[in-house]
């Protein structure tokens, strides 16, 4: 929950004498990965599944966070991109016997390429046109998933999607596959952390804050926004590639337009522009409804209402709230010492 900008000014940094490239976000990621590696022990199959699902959705939300939170673009097709990845992985592994790793890479590549193709004409005009192009794309993908039975199985979907092996170790059990998801999520999160901290990533932030100023400083606005969108979409493809073997069955319903809206709300709820925000957002959107089973379908209304109130009170989401709280606490501690 540390925004890079404020973290630099914390005085503890020099006393701890950590290598300069390590920051709070990275430490939280490492700690989180370790905890999640052991967390499901004794949780049973379903509890473990929910935890894995949380991480998979976090990957999709992370990608959207790059698009929305760092580059300031509205993509309404994140669930469609996730579907593209999930279907690509399912079709390649079940029908053509391709290994999951190759399918995973291809899913990312495919969604990255489609992102470029969609983003190029839209961003040529104006940033908010991307919202409408992705809206159209989302509907189109959904139609194809539902209608092209020979390829996607139509409304019946694709069943019996196998989970991958890891150097000969079969990951078919819930716990084994969960640990695999933890590792993949961790790698993807660290990759994103590294991207955002690189000079290249800092250009994204410059873009979001003031696109015209960024352009006047020599940032090639169009290329950067396009790449942010394409990489964000690729993360949805990766999430889809994990989702298919996790659930072992896919049909068009989790990749609809409403789901894309829902993913956007998760970004905002967690805190757009915060590296760890997506994990909080997906926690609220995916795990909390499992605990609040009694609310049933009302949960969607409750969640959307919470997000609306959160947006009105604190547009930085839960991460922003936590940061505010932390600033208050550490401010008091600083005054005392």
């Amino acid at each position, binding site marked *: 929950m540390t925004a890079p900008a404020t973290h630099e000014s914390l005085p503890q940094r020099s006393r701890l004498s950590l290598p300069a490239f390590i920051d709070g976000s990275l430490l939280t990621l490492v700690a989180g990965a370790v905890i999640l590696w052991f967390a499901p022990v004794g949780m049973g199959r379903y509890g473990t599944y929910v935890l894995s699902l949380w991480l998979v959705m976090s990957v999709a939300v992370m990608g959207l966070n790059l698009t929305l939170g760092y580059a300031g673009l509205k993509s309404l097709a994140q669930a469609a991109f996730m579907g593209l990845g999930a279907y690509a992985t399912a079709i390649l592994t079940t029908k053509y016997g391709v290994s999951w790793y190759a399918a995973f890479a291809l899913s990312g590549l495919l969604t990255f390429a489609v992102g470029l193709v969609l983003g190029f004409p839209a961003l040529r005009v104006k940033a908010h046109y991307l919202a409408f192009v992705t809206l159209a794309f989302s*509907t189109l993908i959904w139609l194809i998933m539902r209608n092209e039975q020979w390829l996607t199985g139509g409304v019946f979907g694709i069943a019996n999607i196998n989970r991958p092996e890891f150097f000969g170790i079969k990951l078919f059990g819930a716990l084994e596959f969960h640990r695999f998801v933890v590792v993949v999520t961790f790698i993807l999160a660290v990759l994103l952390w590294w991207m955002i901290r690189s000079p290249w990533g800092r250009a994204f932030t410059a873009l979001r804050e003031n696109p015209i100023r960024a352009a006047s400083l020599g940032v090639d606005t169009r290329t950067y926004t396009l790449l942010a969108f394409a990489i964000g979409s690729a993360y949805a493809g990766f999430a889809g590639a994990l989702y298919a073997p996790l659930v072992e069955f896919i049909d068009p319903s989790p990749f609809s337009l409403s789901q894309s809206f829902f993913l956007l709300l998760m970004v905002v709820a967690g805190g757009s522009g915060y590296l760890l925000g997506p994990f909080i957002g997906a926690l609220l959107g995916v795990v909390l409804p499992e605990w609040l089973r009694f609310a049933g379908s009302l949960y969607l209304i409750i969640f959307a209402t919470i997000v609306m109130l959160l947006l*009105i009170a604190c547009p930085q989401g839960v991460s922003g709230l936590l940061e505010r709280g932390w600033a208050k606490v550490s401010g008091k501690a600083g005054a005392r010492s």
Partner: protein
Amino acid sequence: MAEFIAYLIAGIATGAIYALAAIGFTLVWQTSQTINFAQGEFVMLPAVLVLLAIKLLGAPIWLGALIGIAAFILVFGVGFKLTVVDPMIKHGVLPLAITTMALSIIMKEGAKDGFSAEAQNFPSFVPSQTIQVFGASISLQHLAIIAVAFAVIGALQWFVGGTRLGRQMQATAQNPTVARILGIPVERMVLLTFVINAALAVVASVLISPIYLAKFSNGEVIGLFAFIAAIVGGFNQVRGALVGGLIVGIVDSMAAAYISTQYRLAVPLVLLVVIILLKPEGLMGRKEERRV
């Protein structure tokens, strides 16, 4: 040929509905930079509220209609502007757009849980008969939709261009700063566009629901096509939204008849992409200058 005329009339009728939604969308965008992603749900909900008022109060149809419509305009015209748009617009266009997405989920799920997950019959004010014109059988309901929608759009055009209040509203849309200097009550004008948006949604809802039936998911397609209509016509033009709506409606109807019923939705989407590639400011639109 007879077939073609029937499809054309059906296309113009649904196009008029899209135009009503697109005009409201454009008005609200012009005066307050609100991209309302709940626009489709705005068209879905009035019919549901009317049926709900009839069911819960046991009221006759006319009274139920009155209560449902008044409640909708109050909550989603005035209330939407005061409780959602006003506090959000300070944070920028993006958070506001996302808030409208949250609103669309709330409206859709609310209609599903609070009313019905099934499609419900909605009373029609014209009989569902067809008449024969030049050998083509044309639905009376379609003709009624076209007549009412065009009358409403005509009245709106007269209001915007021909009355003092309407011109003040137009000035607010074009340049709020100058409008304020000229002594126009800008805030009240913006509120007025939200009320007009809600009223247009009510008209669209009452017209389309006898045909599509009242269902919580109706807003998805209507909203999507209203956005496409607004962009195809020109994002900053009321006239453009009308033309865009009609084009999208006709293209949709023709696509369903002559191309593929499964992929009828896809054809207007292709139209959208073509327009964005070739004439991004829309058919009737002007180029907007960049602002820092």
